[in-house]
């Protein structure tokens, strides 16, 4: 009895030990089964509409054209050409979004880094201060946008503070002036996500090898030298990562724009997502928006590669 049990379990064990390090041929089914439920959801909800988008971007379909979408008239790259060369508004939205991304990320990283450096050493109520500073991250973005709407109204506290600072009654029409409307939007974005930069950079700073820092201080490095020569190069990977991640997210900015200005007075704060919303859900130019989506994907990819290429070359050279 015991012998057979032992023999069986040895066979079982051998057969199953292979399960951990499978040969591809033997265990493809099992590995595939594991991702099947996730894939079904992703395929139906994400991949299929995206492929549909790809198809549509090569046609000129609108819901009002009378045919089903799969029977739409083929147009090759006409949409893309139109977007790149013929559509002023799209180009403006693209440039505006790029501006928001660059300014936003630059502000977030510089403020985040400065704050992280402040928190490098210990001081009393450090934990409470950190909790307060990361609170903006945990506000529902729509509610944050609404709060900023209330702050930046003509009769809001921002104008009141400006008047106190400047002296005489100056009232900025933050949300109805086409030149200024972008400021509240930028500020919501920066306000809400600088704490994330702060946390990421603080994590990076905490992971720095203390010995190098102490050695440098012992050898007489000034604060500035310590920062520029040792700390900065060591946290460069974290900074680059934060830059990429945050940039990709800001490209998609929608909630603050919709709530604060709905695209601005006229189209002065129209970002890419807002443009796509108007064209897709208000004008129903669905094929056009589909093409725009892929163009934006290309732009974001190009942007990310543009950032990563020189920076990774530099770190490789340093090594």
């Amino acid at each position, binding site marked *: 009895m015991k012998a057979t049990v032992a023999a069986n379990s040895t066979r*079982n*064990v051998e057969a*199953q030990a292979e*399960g*951990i390090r*499978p040969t591809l041929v033997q265990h493809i089914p099992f*590995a*595939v089964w594991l*991702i099947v439920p*996730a894939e079904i959801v*992703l395929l*139906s*909800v*994400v991949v*299929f*509409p*995206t492929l549909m988008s790809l198809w*549509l971007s090569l046609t000129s379909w609108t819901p009002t054209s009378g045919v089903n*979408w799969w029977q739409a008239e083929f147009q090759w790259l006409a949409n893309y050409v139109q977007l790149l060369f013929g559509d002023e508004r799209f180009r403006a939205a693209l440039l505006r979004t790029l501006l928001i991304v660059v300014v936003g990320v630059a502000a977030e990283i510089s403020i985040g880094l400065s704050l992280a450096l402040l928190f490098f*050493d210990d*001081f009393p109520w450090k934990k409470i*201060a950190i909790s*307060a500073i*990361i*609170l*903006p*991250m*945990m*506000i*529902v973005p*729509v*509610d*944050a946008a*609404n*709060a*900023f709407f*209330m702050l930046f*109204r003509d*009769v*809001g506290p921002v104008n*009141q503070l400006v008047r106190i600072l400047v002296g005489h009654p100056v009232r900025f029409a933050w949300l109805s002036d086409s030149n200024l409307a972008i400021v509240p939007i930028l500020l919501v974005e920066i306000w809400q996500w600088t704490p*994330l930069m702060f946390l*990421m950079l603080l994590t990076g700073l*905490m992971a720095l090898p203390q010995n190098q820092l102490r050695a440098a201080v012992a050898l007489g490095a000034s604060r500035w030298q310590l920062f520029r020569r040792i700390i900065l190069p060591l946290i460069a990977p974290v900074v680059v990562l934060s830059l990429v*991640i945050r940039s990709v997210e800001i*490209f*998609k900015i*929608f*909630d603050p724009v*919709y709530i604060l200005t709905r695209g601005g007075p006229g189209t002065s704060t129209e970002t*890419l*997502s807002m443009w*796509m*919303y108007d064209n897709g859900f208000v004008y129903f130019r*669905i094929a056009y928006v*589909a093409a725009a989506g*892929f163009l*934006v*994907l290309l732009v974001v*990819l190009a942007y990310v590669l543009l950032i990563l290429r020189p920076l990774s070359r530099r770190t490789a050279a340093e090594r």
Partner: protein
Amino acid sequence: MYQSSTLLRMLKWLAVIAAMCFALFPIFWMVSTSFKPIQEWSTYPPVWIPRQPTLENYLALLNPAALAGSHSIDYKVAETAWRPLLNSLIISTSATFFSVCFGTLAAYGVSRYKSGGESYPMFVLTVRMFPPIAVAVPMLVMYSFLHLTGTYVGLVLAYTAFTLPLSIWMIRSFIDEIPREIEEAAVVYGLSSIRAFWRVTFPLIRGALVATALFIYILNWSEFLFALSLTNGALTTVTVQVSNYFSASSGQLYGPQAALGTLSTIPVIFFGYLIQRHLVRGLTFGAIKR
């Protein structure tokens, strides 16, 4: 490391306090406005702390009947906020549940068996780069074809799909930290690989799974774009509902908006602080670990 002069230390504390004020001010404003009666909403100079604090705004949201016959200006809120709150709760919870379940399975596959190929993680990251609004448009076409617009199923499906990549990514980073040898040891003891995972690895990552679930819950609860695009008037979530407080006579109803904002943000703040340690890992797709 450096001995700071007192002046420098004072400046540093000042900077920290300034940062804290900056971070807290808009939130303070929202909470303060939620307690203001209607006559204090649009005064100039603006009222910072309500002189006649009131619960009217909250009552308007939750129990309008209690307002009937009150002395303040009669503003009728179109419907109570119970429905949107309930909808948000149902949708967020279901979507989070599915996302974490499917995500764990897929993460296990990707981590231990490299399911989906070597470049699956890169594929996942690229999915995040595509503007969601561009997907929402054909999704709406697809949904209206399938009669899924404005249904619970439709939104839960959309939310699950869009948080799955993040879920898989995060959970995979947690599973990666558990050495395979533990599972192999379990297999040597006679368990099948699935049971090895369930009895050995799973308990070790339970806390991490909870953190991931809370993180995804926060994302689902705060989601706006799909809730706006894929629903009609019948089914609203909390995020969309906030924009509905607009009356012809009083303009935007700042009080109830602020009140709903405060109410809807409370769970997010609560969960956010619970998973504070894991927030960085979550928002950087597992790249930065504490």
